[in-house]
């Protein structure tokens, strides 16, 4: 075991690392992966963290129980100013808990997102996609696909799953957008969190009074049977499902549509044979790996990752983006290739925290791509590709607008 020499006089690379091109991974990631795959970087608050960039090492980080996800811990790295303080306004999201607490929180909801349950939602997802295309066709062209389609589709899907009324959803979407902006300051982040918390508390109260056939009502009933309703925990669960379930999917819809409109040979693959769409979806997930910030952990004990000793109390960032461009695992990783089997990508993470809604996200994307290009065969960008506004300053990569016409 070796501890990589850190030359205190040399300047460390700052993290987060911004994307400058929608396709190519920033060269600094590649340099790290090739030359020092477990390397120290400096965070916005001056703190340091180990940046992990190889696929095998990223999986090792994300499945090591000695590396904690608990942001309530004092030394937890602050990659997004105000994020940890904002999280403290809620009962802990399951994503910041370690096992066994994490498993206790996740177990009751996993059946809601099983492959079988999500497959049963597909007809309703199809209706929702068709509905928003019908509405879009009534609009004067060009339209911003993000506003009229990419955001509304997953928002309605996820609000129906929770049993949340769609009215008032614009309010939620506005708040969430500010929360996910990289430039939002600490106080702004905390204020938004307080408002979101109030909104979710109200939803939980309404569901307790008027239960329905939905995830939230089932969780309320389960908790009632098990001895008592934990309102703050349910509010956090709803907020997590909403936050994780709408903007991420919207970003992938936009990036997928953008990719296929600018690379018609990719679109031809799924048009010729829709049974290839699921594979294309996983390849898009691998290629873009939109959570730019990676996964953050705090070492609870000395741990060896990729031959480097990480000491107790040190911070670790596993870059799922760099892992998904690792040539040791994906041939020609800088190529977006719909014929590739990329199911083992880590775009949804790895380890016990791997995305709860991943099967839902995949089905939404499949239905969207198949339906959108079938119903709008003349769909095209309404501005030159180089004028598109990518989210290089957000927590999750994507496009701010996607102007299209047909």
């Amino acid at each position, binding site marked *: 075991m070796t501890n990589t020499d850190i030359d205190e006089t040399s300047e460390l690379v700052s993290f987060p690392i911004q994307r400058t091109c929608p396709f190519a991974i920033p060269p600094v990631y590649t340099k790290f992966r090739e030359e020092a795959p477990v390397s120290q970087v400096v965070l916005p608050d001056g703190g340091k963290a180990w940046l992990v960039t190889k696929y095998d090492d990223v999986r090792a980080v994300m*499945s090591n129980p000695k590396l904690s996800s608990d942001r309530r811990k004092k030394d937890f790295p602050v990659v997004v100013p105000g994020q940890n303080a904002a999280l403290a306004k809620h009962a802990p999201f399951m994503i910041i808990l370690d096992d066994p607490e994490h*498993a206790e929180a*996740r*177990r009751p909801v*996993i*059946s*809601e*997102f*099983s*492959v*079988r*349950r999500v497959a049963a939602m597909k007809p309703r997802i199809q209706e929702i996609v068709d509905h928003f295309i019908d509405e879009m066709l009534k609009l004067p062209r060009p339209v911003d696909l993000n506003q009229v389609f990419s955001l509304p589709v997953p928002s309605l899907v996820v609000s129906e799953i929770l049993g949340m009324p769609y009215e008032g959803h614009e309010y939620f979407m506005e708040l969430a957008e500010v929360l996910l902006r990289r430039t939002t300051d600490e106080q702004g982040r905390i204020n938004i969190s307080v408002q979101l918390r109030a909104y979710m508390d109200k939803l939980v109260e309404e569901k307790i009074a008027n239960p329905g056939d939905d995830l939230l009502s089932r969780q309320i009933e389960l908790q009632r049977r098990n001895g008592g309703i934990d309102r703050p925990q349910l509010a956090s669960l709803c907020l997590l499902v909403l936050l994780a379930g709408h903007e991420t999917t919207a970003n992938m819809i936009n990036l997928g549509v953008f990719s296929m409109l600018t690379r018609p040979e990719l679109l031809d693959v799924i048009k010729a044979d829709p049974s290839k769409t699921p594979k294309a979806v996983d390849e898009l997930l691998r290629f873009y790996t939109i959570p730019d910030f990676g996964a953050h952990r705090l070492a609870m004990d000395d741990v060896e990752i990729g031959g480097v000793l990480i000491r107790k109390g040190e911070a670790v960032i596993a870059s799922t983006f760099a892992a998904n461009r690792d040539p040791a695992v994906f041939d020609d990783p800088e190529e977006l290739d719909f014929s590739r089997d990329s*199911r*083992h990508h880590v775009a*949804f*993470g*790895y*380890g*016990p925290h*791997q*995305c709860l809604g*991943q*099967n839902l996200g995949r089905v939404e994307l499949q239905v969207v791509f198949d339906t959108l290009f079938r119903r709008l065969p003349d769909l095209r960008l309404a501005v030159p590709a180089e004028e598109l506004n990518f989210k290089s300053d957000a927590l999750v990569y994507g496009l701010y607008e996607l102007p299209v016409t047909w």
Partner: protein
Amino acid sequence: MRLEKDHDRCIGAGQCVRTDPRIFDQDDDGLVKVLIDRPRGTDEAAAHKAVFICPAKALSIAQD
């Protein structure tokens, strides 16, 4: 070969079911169900893929 599951580790991600729904399913709680515990022929490769892809290391292969 024999496929073994560990429900204490399973997180219900469903990656195994997506790898091969003939070999794997999820029970009412969303946890892994092994439908073919002694995969043969081409099923063996699918079983190995599922073991590799499982995010929770809830699947393993035992040799008889």
